[in-house]
């Protein structure tokens, strides 16, 4: 690895507190790639852009800035795994770096807790690090001796929204209506990324919609699931834990509320990108968090993983 970089890992809320296997897979993958991840001790909610930015922009800037100062103290850029956290921290960082008046206001609040936003670091989604900094070719090379059997799943890639938009502040050189970078990352593992209707549509969870109007959010999810099922998707690959939750728990919620209208029930396993990449690099299904605990009830994954585990040659107990 040419540029051995160190990053501060921003965890957010959903990954550490509800979907920790995403954290597990990412830590394992970055370790395998030789990239060091520092902790952001005392980090809080980013704060979630779909809700808190809509309630009070100044508080959103303030709590976001506090999180940024933790990474500034670590003297590293931030690596994060969630589109929502990305939407918040990337944009808070940019706003405060470019608007001296807003920065002064926020710093006057931060002074009360002995902090100061200096604007010394960058915020990167792990997809940005993997695609732009490391690159497809290097990753493909690393997978060459990773896994004995090639992965060849038919995948429905779901980008989510804040990974790609607003495009003028995102690090992708792509057509915002048809991004390809996550598909390329998926296909380097050997899997096939399927084209499907309205592929770039929102999952429905964001903007406070899942919390306030769950049925509306699930109706959007159902539309996406229908389109994915229509093309024979064996799994959904995500880059955001909220999209992940919306598809994973969402399929159970949609199935149970539809009274036989959804026939057959939705059953497409949902996998976060670093879980897939980890497999391709030679990590075990257990190491990337694909094996569900038998002892814990009512925890994810809610949509059973067995179909994918069988397809990738894992022994599945009856």
């Amino acid at each position: 690895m040419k540029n051995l970089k160190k990053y501060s890992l921003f965890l957010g809320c959903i990954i550490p507190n509800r979907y920790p296997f995403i954290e597990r897979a990412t830590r394992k993958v970055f370790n395998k790639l030789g990239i060091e991840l520092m902790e952001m001790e005392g980090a809080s909610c980013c704060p979630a852009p779909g809700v808190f930015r809509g309630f009070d922009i100044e508080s959103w800037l303030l709590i976001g800035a506090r999180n940024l100062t933790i990474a500034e103290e670590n003297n590293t850029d931030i690596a994060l795994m969630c589109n929502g956290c990305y939407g918040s921290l990337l944009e808070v960082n940019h706003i405060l770096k470019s608007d001296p008046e807003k920065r002064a206001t926020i710093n006057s609040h931060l002074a009360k807790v002995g902090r100061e936003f200096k604007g010394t670091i960058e915020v990167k989604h792990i997809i940005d690090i993997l695609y732009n900094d490391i690159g497809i070719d290097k990753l493909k090379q690393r997978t060459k001796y990773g896994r004995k059997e090639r992965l060849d799943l038919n995948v429905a890639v779901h980008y989510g929204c804040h990974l790609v938009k607003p495009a003028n502040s995102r690090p992708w050189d792509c057509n915002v209506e048809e991004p390809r970078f996550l598909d390329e990352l998926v296909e380097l593992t050997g899997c096939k990324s399927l084209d499907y209707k309205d592929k770039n549509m929102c999952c429905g969870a964001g903007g406070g919609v899942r919390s306030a109007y769950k049925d509306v959010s699930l109706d959007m999810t159902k539309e996406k699931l229908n389109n994915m099922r229509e093309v024979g998707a064996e799994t959904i690959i995500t880059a955001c834990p909220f999209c992940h939750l919306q598809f994973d728990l969402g399929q159970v919620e949609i199935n149970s509320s539809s009274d036989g209208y959804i026939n057959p029930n939705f059953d497409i396993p949902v996998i976060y990108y670093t879980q897939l990449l980890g497999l391709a690099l030679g990590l075990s299904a257990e190491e990337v968090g694909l094996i569900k605990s038998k002892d814990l009830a009512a925890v994810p994954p809610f949509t059973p993983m067995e179909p994918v585990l069988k397809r990738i040659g894992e022994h599945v107990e009856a």
Partner: protein
Amino acid sequence: MSDLRSVKITNFSNDLSDQIKDAGFKEIDGCIQCGTCTGGCPSGRRTALSTRSIIRKVQLGLDEVLYDRDLWYCSTCYTCLERCPRKLPITDIIIQLRNLAVQKGNMHPTHVSLSHHLYNTGHGVPIDNEKWENLREYHDLSAKPPTVHSHPEAIKELQILLESSKFDELVGIEIEESEEKYEKEINYVPKRVSNTQQS
């Protein structure tokens, strides 16, 4: 024909449109009401949300839009912002309108709860059950993440900051120990600027 009445808005108020322009959205005058935003809106095609008419209401200074439940059906996917032929930052305008709506006391109860979680725990979605710590340990991670969950002093910091920005007052957090939760319902109060009767 004497019982026909029409509602004519003759007294346009500039207040709301000025407020939005002062917040940095001077482009709002450039909206030509083409409806491309509504056309691509994933939420709009299954709810009453019409992005175009929200912008129209702002242009006309109709502050009833701040009492509109439709404002909260937007999932902030940014499709409208990317497609707008006049390059209006539509999603950011909706977010600004939400800020003004909340200032008027219009907030969904679950959003109030989320705000209370943020203030009390530092997380919008906190660990609220032992099973989540057990799940973390099952996945080879520390039972408590290195976030505010491992640093009570960080929660105190957060609270000082949220009080400094008056977030606590905005969402109705009582600082003194209190059993009661204050919930704010969305109150739809249509405000017509003027009515004229035609005979």
